[in-house]
Structure formats: structure tokens, C-alpha cells
């Protein structure tokens, strides 16, 4: 006894599907032109929108950074005055003449009344 090969059914099924698909396929002219409002045509809109978002974010970062710099410059830094601050206000040559030997800072401080002995 022979059984029907399902592959024969497959051929018949595909033949019927082919006819039905041909009737339902969009026309050649329509596909050739491209669908109006298709995702392909809208893709450039998507990239423009994405680019705008990125550009806006970059501008916001730049503005935010510059604003921060200006605020920082407007604030006077708080400095604690110390006993040796006068050295910063002296010309370098004057400082070198006043402190001739490198490393003998303690003696210099004592001579100028800035050593521990001068503090009571």
C-alpha cells in the first residue's frame, strides 16, 4: 500500500500560495516609487530629530560649563593670612637678598623676629 508523500501536498500548497500571493502583492509601480510615508522616507526625519537632541544637549553642556567658570571667577577666594605672607608681596630679588642661604630658614626667621622665641 502506498502512502501519499506529504511533499506532494507541499507542492500543491505552495502552488496555491503563489497564486494567492500574486493577487495580493502591491503593484510594481507602487514598490518602484516607494510607499508615501514609508519608514525609508521618514528615516531622514529621525536622524534630523536625533541630531537636534544631541546638538541641544551639547549646547546645554557648553553653556552650563561657561556659566560655572564665570561664577567661580566672581567669587573672591578666601585666604588665611599667615606670618610669611609678606614674602609673597616682595620682589624675588629682594627675597633672595633677604634669605641668602638656602636651608638656613630657621636662622632667618629668628633674626627677623618670626621664630618660636619671638612668640609669647
Amino acid at each position, binding site marked *: 500500500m502506498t502512502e501519499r508523500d*506529504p511533499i506532494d*501536498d507541499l507542492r500543491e500548497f505552495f502552488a496555491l500560495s503563489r497564486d494567492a500571493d500574486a493577487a495580493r502583492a502591491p503593484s510594481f509601480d507602487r514598490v518602484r516609487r516607494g510607499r508615501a510615508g514609508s519608514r525609508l522616507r521618514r528615516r531622514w526625519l529621525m536622524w534630523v530629530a536625533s541630531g537636534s537632541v544631541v546638538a541641544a544637549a551639547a549646547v546645554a553642556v557648553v553653556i552650563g560649563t561657561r556659566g560655572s567658570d564665570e561664577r567661580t571667577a566672581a567669587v573672591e577666594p578666601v585666604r588665611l593670612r599667615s606670618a610669611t605672607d609678606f614674602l609673597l608681596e616682595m620682589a624675588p630679588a629682594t627675597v633672595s637678598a633677604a634669605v641668602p642661604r638656602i636651608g638656613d630658614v630657621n636662622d632667618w626667621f629668628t633674626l627677623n623676629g618670626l621664630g618660636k622665641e619671638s612668640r609669647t
Partner: protein
Amino acid sequence: MEPRDLEAQLELLHPLGFAWSVRCCRGDRVQAEDVLHLAYVKILEGRVKFEGRSAFKTWLFGIIRWTAYEQHRRGWVESLWLGRWWREWPDPAPDHAETIDSEKRVAQLKQALARLSKKQADVLHLVFYQDLTVHEAAEVLGMRPGTVRTHYERGKERLRVLLGAKELVR
């Protein structure tokens, strides 16, 4: 090939090309139309040229397959951005079984085909639906003929198993 002849050939093969495009787009008819449009644009603008090394149909189907792959890859990248908000829902295509024939056998065939691997289903589609030879199907899929024949034989055998066919007695 002259542009007019090229366009005439494309129009002649359009229904079969669309069916293959739907197959490559996993049943998404909207995307299939876009893919086919892109393939036509590539061909008619001369970006790809038919050099006569294979049958025109085989060459066209290869272009459609590559275009579908490129679109699929691009769609994955776009879905990471805003692309997912632009995607259209695929048209709900009417069931062939219900449109053509409501016999139980057709429904069983469709279910069995859905259970095959993609490569086996593609090969059977190209051979039975598109009437290509195994060698031509290999050209379309970019595989070796031996590999395609293996998929073809295994696909048929799997169908027989799924449909519960008994061994033929000749």
C-alpha cells in the same frame, strides 16, 4: 542590459520577488515592500549590475536577500535610538489556509513548515515556491550547493516526520 529591459524583467518577476522579500523579512509585508523598493533602486540606478553569470531571477533574489539583511541590521541599530517610535506595525496578512482552503491538511502543513529551521524553510521555499533548482537556491543564499542540498533533504525528512507520514512502499 538596457534599463528598459531591466525594468521589464523586474516587473515580470515582481510577484515572486515580493514573495521572496516577505520570506526574507520574516513575514513582515510592510518591511518587505521597503526592501524590494530598495533593491529596485539599487538595480535601476546601476549600483549593482547583472553580469550574466547566473540566471536573472537568481541574481535578483540574491540582491533582495542582502538588502533584507542590511535593513534588518540597520533596524536593530535604529531601535536603540528613536527608530522604534517610527516603526509601523506589519499588516495582519490573511491566513493562506483560511483564504485558499480550510482543509485540515493545509493547516498541518503550515504548522509543520513553521517548525522547520529558517535555512530549511528558506530552501524549501526557493525550490517549491520559486521553482528554483537546488544549485540556484545555493546561489541565492550564498551557500555551497552541497550544504543547500543537505538542508533540502533534511527539511523534507523533517516535514515527513512532523506530518506523521508512513514510509512509502513502492
